[in-house]
């Protein structure tokens, strides 16, 4: 019995690297699916991980960089600024919801907030593709529409996961900072000009 347990414990150490990576990638992918089709479920909360948020944040920050060489005229967000806004924003919102009396753990909340950036990352991709076309008001309207839809999707997804953990008379107080957070990220995406 004991040797069997020891076998089980060391099994993840002895497996090949490909197995480890594929298992983590599958977990991340499963959570992406849960964000894209948000239903009330505990998957994001139960096995939280921060790989997904890291991948999304780095992707978003890289896509918000422009290729221009003259960095003086470049007023856009630097990589570090996007990173700081996303992570410190998520930490602040988590602290806020815990201080208001929510019963969600610190990393679970970070996980949910990070994963719900996925729709906005998709919006960033779409905006970059749209910007390859002719600039003009139609271009802008298309981008505006896409960003608004993805912003709404992010809010709905994160509220579906987070709202239940708050006491009922403080739900609005806990949800408003999430709204502000995704609004700022949407603004950064919308005002991106290459």
């Amino acid at each position, binding site marked *: 019995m004991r040797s069997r347990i020891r076998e089980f414990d060391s099994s993840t150490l002895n497996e090949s690297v490909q197995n480890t990576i594929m298992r983590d990638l599958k977990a991340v992918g499963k959570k992406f699916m849960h964000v894209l089709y948000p239903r009330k479920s505990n998957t994001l909360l139960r096995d939280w991980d921060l790989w997904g948020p890291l991948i999304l944040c780095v992707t978003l920050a890289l896509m918000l960089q422009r290729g221009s060489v003259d960095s003086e*005229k*470049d*007023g*856009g*967000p*630097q990589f570090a*600024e996007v990173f700081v806004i996303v992570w410190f924003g998520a930490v602040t919102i988590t602290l*806020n919801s*815990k*201080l*208001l*009396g929510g019963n969600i753990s610190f990393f679970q909340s970070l996980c949910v907030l990070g994963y719900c950036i996925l729709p906005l990352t998709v919006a960033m991709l779409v905006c970059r593709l749209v910007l390859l076309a002719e600039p003009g008001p139609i271009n802008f309207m298309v981008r505006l529409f896409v960003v608004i839809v993805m912003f709404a999707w992010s809010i709905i997804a994160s509220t579906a996961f987070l709202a239940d953990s708050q006491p009922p*008379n*403080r*739900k*609005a*107080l806990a949800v*408003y*900072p999430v709204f*502000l957070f995704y*609004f*700022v990220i949407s*603004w*950064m995406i919308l*005002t*991106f*000009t290459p």
Partner: protein
Amino acid sequence: MAAVDDLRFEEFGDAAASLAANSDTTTISIEDPGDTPKHQPGPPGGSGREEDDELLGNDDSDKTELLAGQKKSSPFWTFEYYQTFFDVDTYQVFDRIKGSLLPVPGKNFVRLYVRSNPDLYGPFWICATLVFAIAISGNLSNFLIHLGEKTYHYVPEFRKVSIAATVVYAYAWLVPLALWGFLMWRNSKVMNIVSYSFLEIVCVYGYSLFIYIPTAILWIIPQKAVRWILVMIALGVSGSVLAMTFWPAVREDNRRIALATIVTIVLLHMLLSVGCLAYFFDAPEMDHLPTPTAAPNQTVAAAKLS
């Protein structure tokens, strides 16, 4: 019978045994406060006598007062200490915001809304919203003002977010600190009836900044007159909230010092709003004067006419 055993404080074991043995004994648990008014043993789990006393409204009323006073005395390195500053419900936050928007003469914001329970939620998130409102509106208004010019390349200017954040948070926290220190100093000299704690002052300042959020959004309109009217309205509303809040704290004092304090408060408030307007929002002179880069505009105008 089990009732006799129940009256003995130490013997929790007996109560548990009697409960196990006889399911319809009247062992008192917390869910049934009406059963016996006198001293109760704790529930079989033994969760502490103080809880029972407080819940059952025991005749040790001073004990309950001690417990109510103990609400705020967790040591400052625990999380619970900071949770007491966020002990507000949604409707309370809305009420406080409404109170800051509609100053009623004679009604003191602190006494009416905050006295029981100063919170840090409002000040923190109102300042955060204000920072982003100023930065985003400044950006939008500059974009709209320079819309037709060929030489203007739009940049989102995220530097301004950090500057706005520094300014707003410094104002919302350092000015209350200075004011609190000043009031404490005057309190030691002159006996004032009304004295505010530091958190209450932070609360008033935070909520009084709320009016600047719609003001900042409306500053996108590129008309100088409109902007200055907005400044006056916002200053009037929030300045009067601040003045009416702090007047009772200084009116016992020397007349000149009291007036100087109120004037300084309002002046700093005005400095904040005018400074933000001047720094983040470009002046809309282009609407009235012929632009120096006249050639592209003339060609655009000529193209429109033809």
